[in-house]
């Protein structure tokens, strides 16, 4: 079957057939405009999340408690910059530039993961972000390794390999706290109390409320629904919390033998909407800091372009 054949006869049906047969869509293949737009939205949002996500943890690099922790944290935040790069590159295969995507972020048209609008107040927060937030990201990204768009899928495979190191570094930050002094235990529990619910919100609204859900599933951009992913995360995380001796701040959390899953309480969707709509504690600062760094770097990028231009014309 040639591309001509595909585009001359019902291209959308042929496209869907490829997706259904688990054949990856590549940049030069025909794709519905909605698929392209949906992917640009999702991949750029994912890239922005990696980059904005550098801020809450980056906030502790200069204050990390030991030399070893400082190095590991710096390497971890550096990885996130790398993930941002892979993802911007994957999105660029869809005909959008990094500059466009960053512009859309600064103008408020593109979103990033809302979780990063919460502040990191103590060192334990750095551990909990690595453990909970990165675990949640992995649950989502593992399913995205099978996403239908080739470049996105390959970026996810690479990223997943590194994320498991991130998750472990978070857990390793928490271990000495969980078995440490009363102060350290309290610090870890307090971080758990503040990050648990926002982490559950990372998977997005219930499937019944999800705007992009159905079409994304049909096109196999998403492979599991928000609620399925959330359940996977809770099921795998509860035993880890027990191991650390940290209480999960949900009185309704209990094992349901019949379902073979944990039951859990209802998420505060008002809080979710407040933060998503830009009114979380750090939304403004996260965006302002990113756009300030971008602005302050403009003269450097300009000098670089000028030099390249001189080399070309020399």
């Amino acid at each position, binding site marked *: 079957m040639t591309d001509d054949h595909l585009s001359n006869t019902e291209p959308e049906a042929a496209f869907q057939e490829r997706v259904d047969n688990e054949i990856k869509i590549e940049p030069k293949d025909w794709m519905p405009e909605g698929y392209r737009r949906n992917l640009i939205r999702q991949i750029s949002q994912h890239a922005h999340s990696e*980059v904005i996500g*550098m*801020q809450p943890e*980056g906030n502790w*690099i*200069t*204050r*990390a*408690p*030991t*030399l*070893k*922790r*400082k*190095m590991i944290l*710096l*390497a971890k*935040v*550096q990885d996130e*910059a*790398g993930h*941002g*790069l892979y993802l*911007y590159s994957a999105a660029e295969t869809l005909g959008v530039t990094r500059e466009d995507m960053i512009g859309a972020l600064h103008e408020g048209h593109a979103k990033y993961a809302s979780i990063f609008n919460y502040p990191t107040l103590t*060192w334990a927060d750095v551990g909990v972000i690595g453990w909970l937030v990165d675990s949640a990201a992995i649950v989502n990204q593992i399913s995205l390794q099978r996403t239908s768009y080739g470049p996105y899928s390959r970026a996810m495979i690479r990223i997943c390999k590194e994320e498991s190191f991130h998750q472990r570094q978070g857990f390793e*930050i928490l271990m*000495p*706290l969980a078995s*440490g*002094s009363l*102060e*350290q235990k309290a610090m870890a529990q307090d971080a758990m109390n503040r990050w648990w619910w926002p982490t559950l919100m990372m998977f997005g609204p219930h499937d019944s409320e999800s705007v992009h859900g159905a079409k994304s599933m049909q096109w196999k951009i998403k492979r599991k629904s928000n609620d399925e992913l959330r359940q996977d995360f809770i099921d795998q995380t509860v035993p880890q919390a027990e191991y650390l001796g940290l209480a999960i701040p949900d009185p309704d959390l209990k094992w349901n033998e019949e379902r073979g899953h944990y039951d859990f309480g209802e998420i505060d969707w008002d809080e979710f909407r407040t933060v998503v709509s830009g009114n979380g504690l750090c939304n403004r600062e996260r965006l302002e*800091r990113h756009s300030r*760094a971008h602005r*302050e*770097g*403009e*003269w*450097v*990028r*300009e*000098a*670089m372009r*000028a*030099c390249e231009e*001189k080399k070309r014309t020399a």
Partner: protein
Amino acid sequence: MIPARVEERTSPGRDGVPPSRGAGRLPSQAALAEFVLALGDDSLVLGQRLSEWCGRAPFLEEDIAIANVALDYLGRAEKFYRYVSELGGGRRSVDEIAFLRDSRAYRNLLIFELPVGDFARTMARQLMVDAFHLPYFRRLSRSTNARIAAIAAKAVKESRYHLKRSRDWVLRLGDGTEESHAKIQSAFDALWGYCPEMFAMAGDEMALLDSGVAVDRSAMKTDWESEMKDVLSEATLTTPGNEWAISGGRDGVHTEHHGYLLAEMQFMQRAYPGLDW
């Protein structure tokens, strides 16, 4: 485990101030520890400064590159401090050495502690220290002390990459736009007088010179100056004159920025003494 109470690194002088280390010759074991400590402090303080760039660089690729350089310095600090710790019979851990001294007991050269400033300021400093570090660690990699030689050999590889990067940036910024030219020129003007300290021999280094443990910094100045002159001239920049020179770091007399750097870096160890992290 870091004990809440920490021994002084050197016995305090009459006013609680460590005795001056600039003058006189120290016994060789004490001199060795002082020498390695100073190299560790240089590495830690610059690594800490460079890590401030994380998430703020002009673009993502550069963010990753600066973090690499910062990690090289922090890794180097860890190796030097581990050796200092062993020389002291393990009485102080690496983290006690890194985090539990006050400003007067840090021996880093002033140029390493200065604030990062803008990207031009950061890159001008990097060129100056990289152009020093590469030949310095090359010589030190032939130290008669095998431990120091090994750390230095790794630093040579790192410094080669650091110098290539900082040299490229200075050329780009110097020969880029009018704005970048002005910014990088003013960075060199502001930092130039901190460089002579890199070539001054401290008392401990003098004491370790004959045995071939330390190397003679002062002999490296001419080559460094001529290399700087070449790069700056290729970057269409003016090499600053030698009208001023500031020093004090090796004697624990630092800029006022140093205390704030320590306050931030040491926060956890000071607020929660004696705990494992």
